[in-house]
């Protein structure tokens, strides 16, 4: 047990602190209330979808980091929408597909956005 934890595990990189990814966005978003959340990866809405929804963990981490702000998954018509892409290169396509315009790009694939005017 000790050998596995203390000798084997350190060979694998450990995840960076969750807040690092969303720190800049947090400063730009309202402190509380509700905003939209979209991603280039699917977020599971039921346990049956979990295994095939690779965006679930990222949503959970974003919610953890930005609490008490509530992130509404797939709501791209909210006044403010957080676009959270696993691949930063996928952001332009994500914004285009969701008809969003970027307000601030905080790096690492995280963009604060709002719906385009009709």
């Amino acid at each position, binding site marked *: *047990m*000790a050998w596995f*934890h*203390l000798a084997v*595990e*350190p060979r694998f990189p*450990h*995840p960076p*602190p*969750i807040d690092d990814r969303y720190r800049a966005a947090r400063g730009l978003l309202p*402190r*509380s209330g*509700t905003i939209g959340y979209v991603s280039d990866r699917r*977020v*599971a*809405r*039921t*346990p*049956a979808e*979990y*295994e095939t929804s690779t965006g*679930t*963990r990222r*949503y*959970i*981490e974003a*919610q*953890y980091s930005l*609490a*008490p702000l*509530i*992130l*509404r*998954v797939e709501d791209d018509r909210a006044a403010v929408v957080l676009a959270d892409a696993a691949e930063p290169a996928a952001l332009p396509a994500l914004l285009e597909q969701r008809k969003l315009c970027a307000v601030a790009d905080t790096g690492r694939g995280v963009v604060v956005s709002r719906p385009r005017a009709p």
Partner: protein
Amino acid sequence: MSLALAAAAAALTGAGLVAFAFPERASSPAERWLRGAIGVALGLGSWSAAYAASLLLFGPAGRIPKDALLAAAGAALLLAARNRAAGADGRREPAPRWLWAAFALAGAAAAAIFVHDTLRGPDGGYDAFMIWNLRARFLARAGTGFRAAFSPEMEFWAHQDYPWLVPGLVAQGFLLSGREPRLVPALFAATFAALAVAIPALSLARARGARWGLLGAIALLTTPCFVVFAVHQESDLPLAVYLASAAALLLLAAERGNAPRLLLLAGFSAGLGAWTKNEGTLYAGCFALALLVRTRDVRALGWFLVGCAPAGALVAAFKLGFAPPTDLWQFSTARSLFSHATDPLRWGRLVLLTLRRIFFFQDHALWVAAELAVLLAWVRKLPGTVPGTALFLACAVYAPLYVLQPHPLEWLYRYSVERIFIQLWPAAILATLLPLARAAAEPPPETSSGSWPMEPARRVP
């Protein structure tokens, strides 16, 4: 100042409750430490439950007055118990040095792993940031808007309906420190891990000597998933602590002819378990039923249920007034329940999954196989105890729960069965080793009794 008041509130409440429940002074070092460990667990639980009650009733402004009230109540209980008589001399049987060395090694390894893994992953395990520390952040950050923590607008992964004893502790730690140091949830996790070892081990040491206490502690410390759950900062080990504490108090109550105050405290501990996780309500119910079945004493059951009442009322108020429905109800339909119940393949898959997990070395290191072997070879021939019966009931209830629940069986089983195991394991070690130690010392009685007394029963006024 507010930190000192909060510390006094938790410490005095725990010490006061224990002093209230035990009519005599501790008779041995093991008993003194056992009472101390139970006092710490109940003090922390009371502090968190009182925070939740004050938050739901009065908002964030109630936090500091609540601490003052708790400290005063705890001090009053301590004062009322100051002239207790000395207890009868307890067991002081030493353990061999090699056993102490094995315990020290297991403890040092567990501590090293805890520190190492916590530094590597300071956000804790998946459930910590998905549920428990997420809730703590909501409570600490949202001020008067704390109800957002239970908002159904979040995805169900946040499990807004879960009780929040651990988030209540962490949130208060954040509020007291004025920021959100990652040390706070890690410290609470370490405390509950230590209590999960201490309570069954000291119960065993008090009743059967240091040798059995050390064996119990080693069995827990060397279970591979034990330290992992501590590192992950989840609520399963805290629930295990309240379960083990209730089991220890029920055994102590049985030893004293079902002493009402100890039954009250056992119920209070089981109630705090219900405020820790949803499964805690199931365990409190199993303890109540086992108490009735084993003792046939309705008054004893009544005292236990009165003890459950404060935290039980908090759970009921939260569930009925604030929380969205639990996902097991949310995703279930009458049709899904019927089709799952009548699906023989689903029952068969559950049996196969369980058999496979019993020998899953990475999580259990064959401790489950050893436990089953001991139960089948020795313990089943001994008179039943209240904690043992309660644990069997809980395991039995999980079978239909797994089959009827709405989620994919393999998925839910994979992510939950180790949790259930670790919740039950400290109490199971106590409930298994105690009668085994007694049987090792003398032949078992021929007739079954309501409980397995550690010493001849005597009624305490």
